[in-house]
């Protein structure tokens, strides 16, 4: 039942690639997702372990296709829906 995040010792991932002069965030929305998560944890909407658990519960295919902060945003929306803050539909109509 190991989850997709539990990769220690696993083989077959792409080579390690370093990005020279990497910016702290690659787009504004990434910084927003980062700050949004911190704000919701501080407010007690969910805790960090629930946040990690939510990422781990993403469908494996979606998990692997998503970038780092796309996973975060998917987990935030999942938790907001599960906690009854908003419906999944309300959270996806952009």
């Amino acid at each position, binding site marked *: *039942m*190991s*989850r997709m995040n*539990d990769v*220690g*010792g696993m083989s077959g991932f792409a080579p390690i690639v370093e990005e020279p002069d990497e910016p702290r965030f690659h787009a504004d929305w990434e910084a927003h997702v980062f700050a949004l998560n911190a704000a919701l944890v501080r407010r007690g909407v*969910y*805790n*960090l*372990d*629930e946040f*990690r*658990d939510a990422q*781990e519960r993403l469908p494996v295919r979606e998990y692997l296709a998503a970038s780092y902060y796309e996973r975060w945003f998917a987990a935030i929306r999942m938790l907001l829906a599960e906690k009854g803050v908003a419906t999944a539909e309300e959270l996806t109509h952009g």
Partner: protein
Amino acid sequence: MADRFAPGDRVRTRSVDVAGHTRLPGYARGAVGTVVELAGRHPLADERARGRDAEPHAVYHVRFAAADLFGAGDHSVVVELWEDYLVEERA
């Protein structure tokens, strides 16, 4: 509450493959290692991930020989593990 383990103690990790969130990495399941030191006390992540309040439990740095985890390697891996994942390993 007295700590269950002290530096130098040999411990074995849980081998059960749990269904939910856990912080015992798969590669370190069912392995024998040595306690390095106490790393503080915190509510068990497995419980908090279910939204439950939990009492703080001791967390330890535990050193494993890579060969015991992967069958090869001359390095060691230090994993940080809640006492809930550990049982005493008798020599």
